[in-house]
């Protein structure tokens, strides 16, 4: 039995040792940045040999909460100012810099062909899915509905508050929900054929901010990653995935 325990401990130790090899840059980033950041990862790693960028993608409000609770993070990229401010208020996060913007779109399921615009979102029985009111895209979507004057009717049709933008995309592309409001960049090639996208003419401009954690053990590397996002190659990669310049 003791030999078994020792063996177990050995496995655990060797697993830790493997994790410690090389430098690991931990980036907590808004869910909507997933494809773009994963897309620019190889180039960054090629330029910084021995570095492995490890992403933690989730709704910005979840990431900000994790930072408040002391999660080990080197870089935080949020999809709105309030969540970045919340992280900064924890005292762990340095100054924030804008590096991209996005656009909102209305998505509808293939079955819901009758939805031609926001005005239809208040129709009785329609199933609207939004991100929750603390999720950045949920905040933007509610602001958009307010601005267009359809908030009350549309919000009465909300059947689920998702924890991140991809939850909204999933529910609509699966046909369970009739419509949702997401970022233009979330209609990725993987789902583009499974839903319809309609423009949203609103004056709501989602902004992305990035900051380095003050207690990062790879501060220089973290700064380099932020510089990459703001620099020419990073901006080109973001543009490729549909993001707008800051």
């Amino acid at each position, binding site marked *: 039995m003791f030999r078994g325990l020792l063996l177990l401990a050995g496995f655990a130790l060797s697993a830790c040792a493997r994790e410690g090899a090389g430098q690991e840059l931990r980036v907590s980033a808004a869910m909507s940045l997933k494809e773009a950041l994963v897309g620019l990862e190889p180039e960054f790693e090629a330029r910084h040999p021995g570095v492995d960028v490890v992403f933690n993608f989730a*709704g910005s*409000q*979840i990431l900000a*909460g994790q930072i*408040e*609770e002391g999660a080990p993070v080197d870089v935080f990229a949020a999809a709105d100012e309030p969540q970045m401010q919340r992280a900064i208020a924890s005292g762990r996060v340095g100054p924030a810099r804008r590096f991209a913007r996005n656009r909102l779109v209305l998505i509808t399921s293939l*079955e819901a062909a009758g939805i031609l615009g926001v005005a239809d979102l208040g129709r009785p029985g329609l*199933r609207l*899915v939004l991100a*929750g009111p*603390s*999720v950045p895209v949920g905040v933007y979507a509610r602001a958009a509905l307010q601005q267009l004057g359809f908030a009350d009717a549309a919000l009465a049709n*909300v*059947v*689920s*508050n*998702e*924890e991140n933008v991809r939850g909204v995309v999933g*529910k609509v592309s*699966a*046909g*369970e*929900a009739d419509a949702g409001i997401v970022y233009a960049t979330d209609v990725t090639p993987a789902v583009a054929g499974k839903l319809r996208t309609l423009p949203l003419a609103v004056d709501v401009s989602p902004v992305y901010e990035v900051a380095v954690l003050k207690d990062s053990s790879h501060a220089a590397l973290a700064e380099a990653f932020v510089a990459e996002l703001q620099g020419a190659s990073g901006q080109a990669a973001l543009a490729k995935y549909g993001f707008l310049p800051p």
Partner: protein
Amino acid sequence: MSLRTGRPGQAHAVLGLLGGAALVFFALPLVALVGRVTPAGLWAQLGAPAVQQALRLSLEVSLISLGLCVVFGFPLAFVLARVAFPGRALARGLVSLPMVLPPVVGGIALLAAFGRRGLLGGWLEQVGVVLPFTTAGAVLAVTFVAMPFLVTTLEAALASVDPRLEMAAATLGASRWRVLWTVTLPAVRPSLTAGLALCWARGLGEFGATITFAGNLEGRTQTMPLAVYDALQTDPEAAITLGLVLLAVSLTLLTALRGHIGRRR
């Protein structure tokens, strides 16, 4: 083995040490959770309408589900325990599956069956039954995940009831229903209670299948676990308090009902 041969003192010490470590492992996070809550905070949270709504919905969903589990789960356990049919082993495996399946996979499977584009989705929509994003959907998700706990507990108990007792009752002229009611049920009562406690507690804690299949909307599908997760995104203190409420309810259930069984044996 070493308990009987060799030095029992040493064996007991080792077992006690490891067992104690396991107990600390379970207790420590829960104690730490309690340590983060102030009585004033707890009281304020309990008074919040959103919390009361989630609590009420959780009780409603878990109790309706418990009823469904009994109505369908008891017969299922009975059939599995007493009727030899081809594929019984597979059926037993199927019934236990939701206990080990990630609940989110259960949720996806429920969508595949009862969702709009699911196997029965079109037919359900025609007869006007909507399950995703409704309280009924939450009940279905909870039932899917919790029922196996009742069925497996009951099945083991039903299989171990001495058939001579039931035969004796039958030879004395009791009908099958009467035998079931007066002999079988009392014999499995301790397991039934334990199974109900496990089933109810698991149902109260259900998260993954519910949020995947039924979505997350206050008052409709946002049960306590979903409310905890929601609160965690904005107000971690509230999440901890809500979690503690859930923990207290479940611990009471498990201790009262399962502890009761322990004393009987």
